[in-house]
């Protein structure tokens, strides 16, 4: 956090190297967050670039209170919501390729499971998907999430419970029952 604060202060003063360091530090979490929110079809590279472009434009207005990650995730979340609205207006296409990180070393079943999870995740209602992604993939606790989404933590906990159950049910419906999911 202290390192972040120093980088951000230098970034606000116009230090390009500090901006580059922030990008290197946060580009993977942000891109991962976007990919899981928007699914495998989204152009995550472009969206991640856009997140840091918006952050760069807005860094002058950022007040460091030790919650840079919340601020950055809020930018990414707004961008993901915009992209999601545009994608819903576009014709739906099923993914033809497995996600990039699933390499040839993974088993065929593992790749199938990855596709099924991606589809089930993309099929979740947006409010449930946002809570599940933030809690499971980004490790954001409910208090931080409440600040990020401006929603009470108790509501978010309820949504999270519903989201996890729906994921389980959807995976079962796609043939990934207890045995497959446990692998």
């Amino acid at each position, binding site marked *: 956090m202290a390192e972040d604060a120093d980088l951000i202060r230098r970034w606000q003063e116009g230090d390009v190297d500090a901006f580059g360091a922030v990008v290197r530090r946060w580009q993977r979490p942000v891109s991962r967050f976007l990919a899981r929110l928007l699914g495998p079809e989204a152009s995550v590279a472009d969206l991640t670039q856009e997140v840091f472009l918006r952050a760069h*434009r807005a860094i002058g207005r950022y007040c460091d209170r030790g919650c840079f990650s919340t601020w950055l995730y809020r930018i990414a979340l707004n961008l993901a919501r915009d992209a999601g609205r545009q994608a819903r207006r576009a014709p739906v296409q099923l993914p033809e390729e497995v996600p990039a990180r699933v390499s040839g070393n993974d088993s065929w079943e593992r790749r199938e499971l990855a596709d099924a999870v991606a589809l089930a995740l993309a099929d979740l209602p947006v409010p449930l998907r946002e809570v599940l992604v933030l809690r499971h993939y980004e490790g954001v606790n409910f208090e931080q999430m409440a600040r990020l989404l401006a929603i009470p933590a108790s509501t978010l906990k309820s949504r999270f419970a519903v989201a996890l159950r729906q994921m389980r049910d959807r*995976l079962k419906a796609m043939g990934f029952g207890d045995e497959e999911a446990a692998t």
Partner: protein
Amino acid sequence: MNCEEVRTFLPLAIYGDLDGAQASEVAAHLKACPGCRAEESSLRQARSALDAVAAPQVAVNPVAIIEAESARQVRLARRWRRIAVAATTLAAGFLLVLAIRPQVRVGDGALVVRWTDAPAPASVPQPSLHLVPPASDPGQAERLAVLAKLLRALVDDADGRDRDRQAEIAALRARLDAITLSSEARWQDIQKDMGVLYRQQFPRKEGLE
């Protein structure tokens, strides 16, 4: 806690988001309830299945971001400059309009733009029916009588001078007539004298003629 309450808390229990007392109650219930244990197991498997999804590798280019932002700042500056120029022009035009107050009139096949006040229509003198009676002046008759006397005196003086001139002219004519008569008589005397002298010098020869 009963099964329904426990199953409500199970997703949070799996992620360690229950407080100590709730977590203990859920754990105690799970030990004694095979159905809730099966539910917990299926939720844990769903949680582990979520990890099957991998994220793509992405490399953000900060230099491109800075260049794009610089270009945008330049565009914004140009746009604001244009807006400022347009606003200044509009304000100047508005002030000019306020200053000269142009009047636009369309009609009779002509467009008339005037930026001064229209001349007032020429006033047509109206015949006055109000007759003012002459003011009564008591000294006016006296002044008129004096004026009449003066005029008569002038006329008399002119008549007298005329009579004197006529008399002078008559006297001059009489003298001229007398001179004329005297001259004619003298001329006749001279002619007689000249005849006498001629005959004396040149006597008439009766036989020659």
